[in-house]
């Protein structure tokens, strides 16, 4: 893996990671945006788009509601894209989707670690709140503002830490796993991708508070399938 692609990934990971919670939330942090973006920097946006689309589907139903912290799909998307683009030449070309899917299957569970780092950042922010309160007692409002902005550093650190972990773990594991499973996964890649579609939709249909969700899904699924069959 070249150092430059690794660092380009880290920069995107930091900027986009801030958009996830701390800053603005323009949804740059969604996999379907973040992964093609990092792919663009590394010269292959289409690989990113494919990864982003599969992750977006799978975690469509996960909501950042209240104090609940969802798994870090942003860093999984960025890390996986960097890994696929960097490892493809090393592992004898990127024919088929075997490598891409294997990277995803390895990277996705690591998104849970992102939850841990994210919580750590939020606990770190509690100390900033204390410091801001003390500053307010001293009537020092400039420090209060600085304390708030310091929180951005915590979120950025959590994002980059998750990215590093995913990329390093992937770089260690994938050269071992790819010769064993890459080819097999390539053979069934269509089905594995279909699983992402079906499980992701099932998750959102199953968790929606819409009583007609099942009917709507079934009707639309059947009509799409049958229309193509008629064609």
């Amino acid at each position, binding site marked *: 893996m070249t150092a430059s692609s690794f660092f380009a990934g880290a920069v995107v990971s930091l900027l986009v990671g801030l958009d996830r919670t701390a800053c603005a939330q323009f949804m740059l942090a969604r996999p379907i945006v973040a992964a093609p973006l990092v792919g663009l920097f590394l010269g292959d946006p289409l690989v990113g788009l494919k990864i982003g689309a599969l992750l977006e589907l799978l975690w469509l139903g996960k*909501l950042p*509601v*209240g*104090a*609940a912290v969802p798994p870090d799909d942003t860093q999984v998307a960025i890390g996986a894209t960097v890994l696929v683009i960097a490892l493809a030449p090393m592992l004898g070309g990127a024919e088929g989707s075997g490598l891409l899917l294997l990277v995803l299957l390895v990277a996705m569970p690591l998104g849970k670690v992102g939850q841990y780092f994210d*919580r750590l950042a939020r606990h770190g922010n509690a100390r900033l709140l204390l410091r801001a309160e003390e500053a307010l007692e001293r009537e020092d409002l400039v420090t209060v503002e600085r304390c708030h902005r310091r929180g951005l550093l915590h979120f950025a650190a959590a994002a980059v830490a998750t990215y590093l972990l995913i990329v390093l773990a992937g770089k260690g594991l994938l050269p071992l796993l790819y010769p064993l499973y890459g080819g097999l996964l390539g053979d069934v890649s269509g089905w594995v991708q279909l699983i992402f579609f079906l499980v992701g939709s099932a998750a959102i249909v199953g*968790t*929606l*508070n819409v009583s007609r969700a099942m009917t709507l899904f079934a009707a639309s699924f059947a009509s799409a399938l049958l229309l193509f069959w008629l064609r």
Partner: protein
Amino acid sequence: MGIVLARIDSRLIHGQVLEAWVPHVQANCIMVANDRIGALSLQKKIMKAAVPRGIEVFIGSLVEVAQQLAGARYSGLKVLLLFDSSRDALRGHRDGIPLTELNLGNMHAGEGKQRYSCTLALDAEDIANFDALEACGVKIVSQCLPADHERDWHKLMALGGG
């Protein structure tokens, strides 16, 4: 039918309840038992506006909620019942709200409260209230979202409090 989920949540009606719990337990009615809010019409109006059509909302004092639950109107509905404190849950139970299980969602930090998990901060009074509820046969579990693991509150006490 009756109560499908009874929960303590300092935020009462909010995203976790509406987006995660209502579909999970398939509730078609949300009841908020709170003496203070029960008397404030503006706050009731704002809270009701957060709930989509098709889900009944009843916001009232503890006694009113107990009466409504005993009546015919709400007995056919799947009710998600919300309290904002352990004190209300215990008082509600004594006022005749039939509780078998109590879910602990969010209980905010404050003076004298100790943090037991990311979302739960309890003081000695809370713990005494839970003991009293448990003595009445109410099972108390902590689970912020349906996707989280359900944990017995005694385990929470053993783990947390750091």
